[in-house]
């Protein structure tokens, strides 16, 4: 995207493609991180103790060069990053784009992300890219497509990926499998890990009239390697009842914080990202959201020194 924040960086070595990021580990701690946005770069560099890690949308760094790569290189020198794909279209029936896989792999090789993730959704049909995370029915056929795509992506990039549960607004009459069973089966067939978006659980539960706790009880928490939290917007459905929109443009709602606490008490502390993608706040606001997540993670951390997480996995 057009970015007015060019030129804020001092010169960095142009040997970018061979940098090994000696100063920072690639491993992402079980602490809170935030989405990395260029508008916050100067604040982050000036902050002595920003957050535990940063996550970026892979597609924003698929250009050949220029400021985006210089900014991400600079961040990567000091922090581990999580690479979050938005456009692989894993959930669609069409073959994955080899070009997109190659671009994705190049980013993995260049930035050595601690975590790599994608969505249970689709966005491309016949070379038309719709720039949204579109839903799919849960059937034996779509399950085999999704698993084949995850196998292909994991083998192509040489890394295990985490799959994120979607937020949805509609359901499919031809779905025959519950979302949680669908996800559990994907993990079992592909060996992928899970990115649990707690906000998506809350949004979908509200929109479809089920209990978020019952979803979480059915969800394979033992495979969760990362959590997402984000703000949502409130609209109305056709019947005038609440319809939540996964908007990523505001603070995390109280109900989602409560669910998050329940999840980490059960699953143990895992890397937790506060996502904020539009109507970006000032850096201190975003940092305070991460701090709120960190407090909850810290509270449960002591419990899990005893290895409870692995006990619950069996």
């Amino acid at each position: 995207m057009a970015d007015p924040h060019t030129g804020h960086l001092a010169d960095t070595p142009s040997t970018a493609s061979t940098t090994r990021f000696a100063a920072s580990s690639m491993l992402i701690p079980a602490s809170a991180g935030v989405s990395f946005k260029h508008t916050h770069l100067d604040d982050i560099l000036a902050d002595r103790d920003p957050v535990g890690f940063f996550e970026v949308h892979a597609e924003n760094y698929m250009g050949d060069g220029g400021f985006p790569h210089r900014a991400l290189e600079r961040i990567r020198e000091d922090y581990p990053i999580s690479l979050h794909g938005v456009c692989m279209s894993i959930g669609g029936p069409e073959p994955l784009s080899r070009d997109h896989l190659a671009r994705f792999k190049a980013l993995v090789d260049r930035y050595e992300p601690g975590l790599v993730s994608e969505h249970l959704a689709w966005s491309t049909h016949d070379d038309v890219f719709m720039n949204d995370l579109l839903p799919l029915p849960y059937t034996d056929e779509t399950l085999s497509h999704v698993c084949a795509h995850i196998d292909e992506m994991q083998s192509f990039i040489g890394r295990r990926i985490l799959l994120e549960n979607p937020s949805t607004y509609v359901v499919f009459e031809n779905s025959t499998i519950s979302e949680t069973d669908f996800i559990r089966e994907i993990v079992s067939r592909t060996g992928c890990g899970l990115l649990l978006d707690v906000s998506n659980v809350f949004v979908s539960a509200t929109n479809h009239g089920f209990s978020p706790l019952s979803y979480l009880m059915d969800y394979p928490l033992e495979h969760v390697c990362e959590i997402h939290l984000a703000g949502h917007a409130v609209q109305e459905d056709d019947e005038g009842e609440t319809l939540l929109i996964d908007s990523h443009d505001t603070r995390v709602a109280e109900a989602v914080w409560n669910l998050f606490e329940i999840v980490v008490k059960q699953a143990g502390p895992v890397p937790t990202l506060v996502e904020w993608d539009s109507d970006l706040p000032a850096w201190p606001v975003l940092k305070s959201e991460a701090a709120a997540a960190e407090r909850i993670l810290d509270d449960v951390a002591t419990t899990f020194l005893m290895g409870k997480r692995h006990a619950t996995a069996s």
Partner: protein
Amino acid sequence: MQPHRERGDLDTAGFRAAILNPAAERPTSITGPNGKQAVRRFNVYRNNVTVSLIDALADIFPVVQRITGKSFFRDMAREFVRAHPPSSPLLFEYGHNFASFMETFEPAARMPYLADVARVERCWLTAYHAADTATLAPARLGEIPPDLLGDTGFAPHPATGLVRSKFAVVEIFDANRNQENVGRIRAGIPQDALVTRPGHDVAVTRLPDGQGAFFGRLIAGGTLAEAAEAGANEAGGFDITEAIGALISTGAFIAAETRDQQD
């Protein structure tokens, strides 16, 4: 079997048609939960797709939006998005044909300079994301024997773009992008915009008369002699020494190669 079953359990074709055309029916398999309707629910997807793509265009073409005003821009962008959705998931590649769309968009007819301003903005973003490649070293020209200089061609830097316009595109672009208050600009003055990224920052340079033809010929693969001729033919005051200086100083090229003289 119903016809849509042939497409498999996920009707991506029907979904796509309904997403991009608000008058189209949504796929029959989509519904609300517990017997609820799905009109507003499906419209969330329509809205997400359309609005996010309009927002992407607004990010790529901020000067065009400033000139037209937000509401005009979004109406124009909405029509473009529905007629020309992106084919790549890389949204910074979107909108290469937005300028030519503007030329056919009737309400924009009273702003005939708009499309060329859009072309400059599209070049700007391409330059912003272009590969980090060293520009042609000034000493390189000195290594070429003078009698071969005319037969020398130049490889453009991946950031390099040229917009030749009948309108004052550089002035309009610069004023609307970089200044808080924009005074009156005489739009009818032809200007050639050279877009480069010699270091970290994108530069949009107004070329002196004749250099538009000169750079245009070089970027298209012509030799220095051909480019000099094109420049001189276009403008009486064309100065070849000045033009060669600009060839180096703008960073528009990365390599020089002298052609074999075989004729």
